[in-house]
């Protein structure tokens, strides 16, 4: 399935992946009674954040992420993606780590779990980080 107007889009892959992500988050909510927010779970696992989730459960979830990614990459025969140079990644990583903790969540916790719950905080956070990302990409494009 493709859109003529957006030749790069993969809507069907996006939708299938999105349903899987929703299923994963639903399992965490209905099974463990918790939010599947990756930044919060990462902080919990590394002792950088408080919460009710046990560190072992947090590590279990985090270990699952690359396992699931590896299985799909093998099944679909995906080529490795291209990443920015390491100094760029370090700057971006610092901002993402600091910002997600300060703002109490990222794309998963606010964007998926919070938005679907109609949480005002999560809707405001999601609109804010998408807007900041759009402006950043536009500025980098204009300057380079």
């Amino acid at each position, binding site marked *: 399935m493709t859109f003529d107007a957006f030749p790069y889009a993969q809507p069907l892959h996006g939708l299938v992946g999105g*349903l899987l992500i929703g299923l994963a988050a639903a399992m*965490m909510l209905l099974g463990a009674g918790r939010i599947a927010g990756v*930044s919060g779970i990462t902080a919990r696992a590394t002792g950088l954040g408080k919460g009710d989730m046990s560190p072992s459960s947090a590590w279990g979830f985090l270990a699952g992420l690359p396992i699931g990614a590896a299985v799909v990459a093998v099944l679909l025969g995906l080529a490795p993606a291209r990443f920015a140079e390491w100094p*760029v*990644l370090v700057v971006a990583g610092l901002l993402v780590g600091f910002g997600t903790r300060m703002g109490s969540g990222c794309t998963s916790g606010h964007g998926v779990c919070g938005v679907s719950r109609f949480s005002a905080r999560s809707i405001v956070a999601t609109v804010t980080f998408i807007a900041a990302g759009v402006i950043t990409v536009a500025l980098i494009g204009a300057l380079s």
Partner: protein
Amino acid sequence: MSLIRKLLPPLISGALFGAGLTVSGMTDPARVRGFLDVFGQWDPTLVFVMGGAVLVMAVAWRIQSRMAHPVFGEKFSLPDRSDLDRPLIVGSILFGVGWGIAGLCPGPAIASLALSPLSVLPFVAAMLAGMALQKLLTQRARAA
């Protein structure tokens, strides 16, 4: 045995999550930056990812509201704040800027440790450093 039984549900949830991120192309920074590139060659795939995930989670929240406790736990432990404060906004802006620079947020970054470990490692390390720095500054501000 009890540890395996405890680790398995979060591990499966994490693996489903990582699989979804990879199927949908969200582990490819170029695709994520394509979504943020609204003024250039916009790639709307992420809309379908978030849409699919939010759809499943909206149903999960309806089910959750009728449950007394999670399937594998005694009580739900969910965020209950509704105030819009400065850290929420400032943190989300910082996160969005980092997201736009590298095309990476916490979930895809950790999932990518299986796909391109060396390329993504600087981002993950810096992200943890950013989280640690945020914790340190918050503790200092509280102490002062």
